[in-house]
């Protein structure tokens, strides 16, 4: 209904592969993007800190997992482990490299590279191991990384509590805050940094998806023998997917620790977080970047909204444990129902809706 495709024609191949080929889409996307930056003054620090920034962090990890699982078909349950590498990497870079050489954005990217390299190491078995068997490698990564940072206290700067708070000076990006007169430790500034990183990396992922690398990944996912017969190096594609994916997870871990909770804590990178992120991916839809974001928003907000609505309706007549359990039940049923209805997740739902809108009132 909304779509008026009549009169839209492309005159070169680059236009044909644009992310938003229709002018209407372009305008909407641009307005949306601007709004993401401009709405900051209208919102509260609380909302940013409790909802938006954590979603940006886990959403980015979901995009990363999407590259590995959605695009390349390599099932992974080590996401939290790779995030953990990112978080600890960022912390140690900030801590141990002289201030004038290091700042948070650089540390984030560099620790992303660390995480990527760790990912490649644990991805090596993927050259031989396929399917569910690969879980063993990614779970090994998850548990090993966790154990490793738990065992070697150096990485936590010998903090006996196991949690280390992040010094305010780490938020000072080469004195940028002073220069602009902005509180860089404040949530709006943190949000903007996270937002820029997430938009940049989402764009990067989307570009990969529609380029040769993305097609190579998908061909490995869909039919690896055919891929190798086409001349695609399957091991290289898999390792590259591990690297890029874990890079994203590492950056996401850094964002989670530095921009969201403000301390480095091993406990938040346990295996259930890997599952949560896999959920976000599946619900959002394999292979779709925007789907990953939708999935992240949904999975993160579902228990919060559910609890809030429960409290609102029953005015605290039930204790929190009950609400949490019911929330789990509803959530579980919802996932199963979604998978039955549309195994492609939100992304597929959105794509069908869009297709329907385009073809309305015809079915095809």
């Amino acid at each position: 209904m909304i779509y008026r495709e009549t009169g839209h024609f492309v005159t070169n191949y680059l236009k044909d592969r644009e992310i938003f080929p229709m002018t209407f889409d372009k305008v909407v996307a641009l307005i949306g993007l601007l709004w993401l930056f401009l709405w900051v003054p209208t919102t509260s620090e609380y909302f940013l800190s409790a909802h938006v920034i954590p979603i940006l962090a886990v959403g980015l990890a979901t995009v990363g997992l999407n590259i590995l699982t959605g695009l390349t078909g390599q099932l992974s349950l080590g996401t939290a482990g790779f995030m953990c590498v990112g978080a600890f990497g960022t912390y140690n870079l900030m801590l141990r490299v002289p201030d004038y050489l290091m700042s948070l954005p650089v540390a984030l990217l560099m620790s992303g590279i660390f995480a990527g390299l760790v990912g490649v190491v644990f991805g090596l078995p993927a050259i031989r191991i396929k399917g569910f068997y690969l879980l063993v490698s990614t779970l090994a990564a998850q548990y090993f990384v966790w154990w490793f940072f738990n065992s070697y206290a150096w990485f936590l700067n010998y903090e006996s509590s196991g949690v280390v708070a992040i010094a305010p000076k780490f938020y000072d990006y080469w004195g940028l805050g002073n220069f602009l007169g902005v509180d860089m430790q404040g949530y709006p500034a943190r949000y903007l940094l996270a937002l820029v990183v997430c938009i940049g990396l989402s764009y990067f992922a989307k570009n990969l998806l529609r380029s040769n690398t993305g097609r190579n990944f998908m061909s490995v996912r869909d039919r690896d023998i055919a891929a190798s017969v086409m001349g695609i190096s399957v091991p290289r594609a898999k390792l590259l997917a591990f690297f890029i994916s874990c890079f994203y997870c590492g950056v996401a871990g850094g964002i989670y620790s530095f921009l969201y909770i403000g301390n480095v804590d091993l406990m938040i990178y346990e295996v259930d977080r890997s599952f949560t992120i896999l959920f976000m991916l599946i619900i959002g839809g394999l292979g779709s970047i925007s789907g990953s974001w939708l999935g992240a928003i949904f999975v993160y907000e579902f228990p919060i909204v559910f609890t809030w609505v429960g409290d609102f309706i029953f005015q605290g007549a039930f204790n929190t444990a009950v609400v949490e359990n019911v929330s789990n039940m509803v959530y579980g049923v919802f996932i199963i129902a979604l998978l039955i209805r549309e195994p492609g997740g939100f992304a597929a739902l959105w794509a069908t809706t869009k297709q329907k809108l385009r073809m309305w009132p015809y079915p095809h």
Partner: protein
Amino acid sequence: MDWVYLIEVLVGGLLSGVMYSLVAIGFVLIYKSSGIFNFAQGTMLLFASLTFVKMTENGIGFWTALFIAAGIMVIFGVATERFVIRPLANQNLLALFMATVGLATFQEGFSQFIWDSDVHGLQMNKFLDIGLLDPNPIFMSDHIPWLDILIPQFDIFASLVAGLMIVVLAFFFQKTKTGLSLRAVSDDHMAAMAVGIPLQTVWAVVWAVTGIIALVSGLLWAERVSVSFTLIEAVMKALPVILIGGLTSIPGAIVGGLVIGVGEKLGEIYLADVFGGQGIELWFAYFMALMFLVVRPQGMFGEKLIERV
């Protein structure tokens, strides 16, 4: 080297391996029959043992409670087939896997919703005063005279039960009609359907049987780690086991369990110092499985795939 200690460690490893095997068998059954990697195994353990414990806490006798709990698990298994597996029959494996994770989430909420979230001690010895075992607290390690080593009595009991379960299952699948159908189904879905084997019935039976296995293994595990949320993690323990064994092989699950059980114990004793840290059992089993799979990607007894193109 202290040989007696080594033997103690080995036997202890084998016995705990049997427990891994039992959980793994539940996995393998479902994977074999329907290609589903059932992540809900852990919550089934929790649900089954929680059901049992709550009944006994309310004064229902051991056997009655066991019987009722088994019944509930059967109903649960059949319902799972009907409402989760069947509608998803033609989806890809990942979707099915995620559905079982969804099922696990539901079950986790459900079991704690209708029962509670408390930690329960099982105290099996209370019920087991039936002449089988010493009436002493069963965690006491017993001296085995003819080998001159100490083995926890409960481990022996658990192994016996697990072994019995395995024998019963073997009988069930080798000799009964349903069992034969299951084997046919696991070989080839289409062919099985073509010769008139009702796929859905077979699946329902498998889920029901898995429910019963979950009950038994849940009770055995619960005795060690208490009936609580931690039971869910049993599934994470069983993962390397089935992967080593090969996803489709019941003997593989048994041998894999023993290998992991022994290997883990040995690693704990001989390798922990090398890594200068505690708790390498967290990942050691996975590394073992990983090493193993790199050599043999299809697992110990898994079918080697010749990819036809």
